[in-house]
């Protein structure tokens, strides 16, 4: 026999979890896709799939990686369906200019544009680490890489970003 009270409580907890994670999931999808409309599609689909599959989330502390896995799958599906052609990154930046704008901080705008130019293999683990707060081991598990490979990508990501942003890199180490 089903337990409607327990079921309602579980659903309420899951809803609360979704609420707390949603903004960062949207941001993650945006940096993954570099396209706001696509990010919204992906997160919308992700929420619907997550809602249906909520029983498979056994440990709430693992919710972030669980959602990220669904988002990455959804993004891959969208990518397959829409068969995107290669686009000029400068066009992407121009298209998403309102999203990249920062009211009073030109440095943030430059950094956001540099993020768009960063290759996906470096951009994705960096966003997972900085925005989503995942550990190296969690990123490695999500991307199917070794810890060492993740650290190398994170190192290269920051090194390239710092150069693109005109930071003082005189103290930056060689690889």
């Amino acid at each position, binding site marked *: 026999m089903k337990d409607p009270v327990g079921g309602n409580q579980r659903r309420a907890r899951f*809803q*609360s979890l*979704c*609420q*707390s*994670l*949603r*903004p*960062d999931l*949207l*941001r993650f999808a*945006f*940096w993954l896709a570099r396209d*706001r*409309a696509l*990010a*919204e599609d992906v997160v*919308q689909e992700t*929420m*619907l799939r997550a*809602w*249906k599959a909520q029983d498979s989330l056994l440990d709430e502390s693992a919710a972030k990686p669980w959602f990220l896995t669904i988002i990455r799958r959804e993004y891959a599906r969208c990518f397959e369906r829409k068969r995107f052609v290669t686009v000029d990154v400068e066009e992407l930046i121009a298209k998403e200019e309102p*999203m*990249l704008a*920062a*009211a009073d*901080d030109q*440095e*943030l705008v430059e*950094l*956001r544009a540099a*993020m768009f130019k960063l290759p996906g293999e470096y951009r994705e683990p960096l*966003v997972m*680490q*900085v*925005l989503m*707060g995942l550990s*190296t081991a969690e990123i490695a598990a999500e991307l199917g890489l070794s810890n060492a490979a993740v*650290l*190398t990508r*994170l*190192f290269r990501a*920051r*090194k390239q*970003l*710092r150069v693109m942003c005109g*930071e*003082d890199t005189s*103290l*930056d*180490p*060689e*690889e």
Partner: protein
Amino acid sequence: MMDCGHYRRAMLAEPSNDDAELRRHLATCPECTRYAEQLRRFEDRLDRALRVEMNPPLMEQRVVTPLRAARPRGARPWDPPHRRWLAAAASVLLGTAVAFSLWLAAPGRSLAADVVKHMAEEPNAWAHTDIPVPEPRLDQVLIDSHVRFRVSAGLVSYASSCSFRGHKVPHLVVQTGSGPVTVMVLTHEALRSAMRFNEQGYRGVIVPVRGHGSLAVLERGPDMDIKAVEGVAARVQSALDWTT
């Protein structure tokens, strides 16, 4: 013995790395100390850069409205094939409505999540201590928010001006009988009503402060219940003197 190259490579890959060997090297190397400070500033900017604003209205236009428009007119609910279709459509609409309600409810929750995330970045602030922050230092941290804290209201053991959602905000730790409590003065974060949160081991409240944004008060650990946190929030709020 660790060299500078090793230290900097490790920090560039993982700036929050708190390995003891890295800390030992940092304590003995002025150049790497300078590098660590450079990286800290860069990391702070990167964190803000990634937090792009994602506003919800487009969602209503792009997802909910087309689904509503797709509902068949004149469908007869007692007709079994149509009923099945309607049930499926209702399921989609319900799921979308749930997702949309989550979207609309997001800002307050998001603020709580960001406050909690900020706590994790400053673990040293939580120390139990009876050493107060010097009053001039406390005033300096609060001055940009146009507020003063009456020190008679509680011992402030930590005061820092922190980057939070693109603004510098005062981050204080007040020692109470039940342990340290963190206070963030969020003058840029207006809130319509108070909200409680319990996330990642932190319990707290964010209360609106009329004309001055909001105030986040939170604790960690099992020693204090949410009512006590709310009591601390009320005491802190009454100990703040706004200068504008």
